[in-house]
C-alpha cells in the first residue's frame, strides 16, 4: 500500500505555551483503517486539526498524497473529509441542503444521484427533508458523516465517531466504516473505546502527552504485547510453591487449589511444556487447565503507564 499521509516532526504549540504535539512522525498508508488511541488531552484532535487545516502548525511538515497541506491546501483538502467530535450542525437546515452545502464548499458540482446514494447508505434518505434540529443524536452523527463524505474524499478523519452513542448505533458505525474501507477510503479514527480499535482498525497508534508512543499492526501489537495467563487447578492443595517450580514465578490462588503462570505468546518458547514436565517430576497432579489472553485495553493501559 502506498503512503497517503506523512507527518514529519510535527510540533504544535499554543499561545499559552502548551505543547499539544511534540515532534510527531506518522505515516498512514492508503486504504487502511488506523485507530489513534490516547487519553483525553493526549493530542489526538490537535493532530487531526493540523492535518485538516483547523489549526496552524508551529513547525514540521505534513504531506497528503505527496503534497504540502499548507502550500497545496486546496488539493490536499479536496482529498479529506472530516467528522469532528462535536455535533456541529446548522439546526434549522434540512438534511439534504446541509449535505449539498458541504459538497459545494469543496467546489464540486451538484450530484443528486451521489447524494441520494450516500443518504441511503447512511439510512438518512427518509430523513432528507427533515430539519436537523428534529433528528436524534445518532441521526445527527450520520448527517455529520454524510457531510464529510459529500465530496467523495479519499481520506476520512473520524474524531471519536461513536462517543456517546448506543451500542447498536456503534455497531452500525463500524459496519459503515468497514464498508468505506472496502471502497478504498483511508480512515483515521480517534477513539476512547479500545474495543472499537480492536474491532475495526488495521493499525493502532497510541498517543500520550503529544507524543506517538507506538504505531503498529493491530495483530502484531496484540501478539507482541500479549501476555497469556495459564491457570492450573490442582488435585491437591499446595501451601507454598515447591522450590523446583520457583523459577516459573507462579502465583498461588484459591487457597492453594490453583496457581497462575504468565507467558508471552510472542516468544519462541512459552515454558508450558517444561512446567508441566517439572510438575510431573515432583508429583503434583493437575485437575484442569484454563488460559486467558490480555486484551488490547490492558496493553493500552500498560503502555500509557510506562
Amino acid at each position, binding site marked *: 500500500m502506498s503512503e497517503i499521509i506523512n507527518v514529519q516532526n510535527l510540533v504544535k504549540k*499554543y499561545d499559552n505555551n502548551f505543547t499539544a504535539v511534540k515532534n510527531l512522525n506518522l505515516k498512514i498508508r492508503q486504504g487502511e483503517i488506523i485507530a489513534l488511541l490516547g487519553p483525553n488531552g493526549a493530542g489526538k484532535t*490537535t493532530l487531526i*486539526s493540523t492535518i*485538516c*487545516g*483547523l*489549526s*496552524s502548525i508551529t513547525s514540521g511538515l505534513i504531506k497528503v498524497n505527496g503534497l504540502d497541506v499548507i502550500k497545496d*491546501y*486546496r*488539493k490536499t*483538502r*479536496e482529498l*479529506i473529509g*472530516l467528522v*469532528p467530535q*462535536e455535533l*456541529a*450542525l*446548522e*439546526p*434549522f437546515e434540512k438534511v439534504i*441542503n446541509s449535505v449539498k*452545502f*458541504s459538497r*459545494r*464548499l*469543496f*467546489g*464540486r*458540482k451538484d450530484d443528486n444521484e451521489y447524494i441520494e446514494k450516500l443518504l441511503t447508505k447512511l439510512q438518512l434518505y427518509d430523513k432528507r427533508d427533515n430539519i436537523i434540529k428534529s433528528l436524534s443524536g445518532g441521526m445527527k452523527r450520520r448527517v455529520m458523516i454524510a*457531510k464529510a463524505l459529500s465530496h467523495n474524499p479519499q481520506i476520512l478523519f473520524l474524531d471519536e465517531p461513536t462517543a456517546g452513542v448506543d451500542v447498536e448505533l456503534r455497531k452500525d458505525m463500524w459496519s459503515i466504516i468497514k464498508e468505506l474501507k472496502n471502497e478504498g477510503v483511508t480512515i483515521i479514527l480517534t477513539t476512547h473505546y479500545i474495543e472499537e480499535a480492536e474491532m475495526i482498525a488495521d493499525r493502532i497508534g497510541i498517543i500520550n502527552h503529544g507524543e506517538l508512543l507506538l504505531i503498529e499492526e493491530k495483530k502484531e501489537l496484540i501478539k507482541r504485547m500479549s501476555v497469556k495467563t495459564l491457570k492450573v487447578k490442582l488435585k491437591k492443595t499446595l501451601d507454598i510453591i515447591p522450590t523446583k517450580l520457583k523459577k516459573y514465578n507462579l502465583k498461588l490462588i484459591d487457597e492453594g487449589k490453583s496457581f497462575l503462570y504468565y507467558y508471552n505468546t510472542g516468544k519462541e518458547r512459552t515454558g508450558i511444556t517444561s512446567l508441566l514436565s517439572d510438575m510431573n517430576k515432583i508429583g503434583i497432579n493437575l485437575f484442569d487447565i484454563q488460559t486467558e489472553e490480555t486484551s488490547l485495553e490492558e496493553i493500552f493501559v500498560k503502555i500509557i503507564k510506562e
Partner: protein
Amino acid sequence: MNIRGIHAIYRYEMNRSFRTLIQSLVSPVLSTILYFIVFGAAIGSRMDNISNVSYGAFIVPGLIMLTVQMQSVNNASFGIYFPKFIGTTYELLSAPLSFVEIVIGYVGAATTKAFSIGLIILCTSYLFVDLDIKYPFFMLCFLLITCMTFSLLGFIIGIVSDNFEQLNIVPMLIITPLVFLGGSFYTIDMLPPFWQNFALLNPIVYLISGFRWSFFGVGDVPIFTSIIFMLIFTSICISIIWYIFKTGYKIKN
C-alpha cells in the same frame, strides 16, 4: 478560485434571510416607514426647507444610510458569528477555500441584503415624498460601497465577538449613536459651532453627506472628502480582516 465554494456560502446566507424574511426585510422597512411618517409627514410638514429641499425628502438619504449601515453590520456579524457559535466553522476551514473566498461569500451576501433593503426603502420613500435624484449612478455606487464597507466591519465584529452580548455592543453602543448623530435628520450647520466641529470627528457624517450629495447635489462636506473618507474606512476594514486571517486570530487554534 473556488467559485462554487463562494457561491455555496453566498446562497446559504441568502437562504437564511429568506427563511427569516420578516426579520430580514419587513422589520427594517417597517421601521423606516415609521420614521417617514413621524419625521417626514408629522414633524417635517412644520419644518422649513433645508438647502431648498423639503424636510421629508431631505431625510431620505439619511434614513437609507441609517438602515443599510445597521443591516450590513448585523447581517455580516451574525452570518459569521453563528457558525462560530454552533461550531460549524470547521467546515469552512477544512474546505479548499481561501480566506478571501470566505470573506467574499459572507460579505457579498450581507452586502446584497443591505443593498436590497436600501433600494426597497428608496422605492417606499416615493410613497411619502417627492424625490428627484440628481446623480442616480453615483448614488447606487455610493450605496453599494457603503453596504460593502459596513458588511466588512460586521464581519470583523462577528469574528472578534465571543458571545451574543459582544456581538451587539458595537452596533448598539457605537454605530447607532454615530449614525443618529451623523446628520441623518439634520445638517451639521444646524448645530451650535462647538458641536459642528465635534460632529466632524464622526466618520458617519462624511458617508451621509456624500450620499445626500448624490441626491441633491449638496452635502455637509465636499464630495471628494466623503469619497476619500469612504476609501480610508474601507481600506482599514480590509486591512483588519487581512490581519485576522493571516494570524488566524479567533478563527484557528
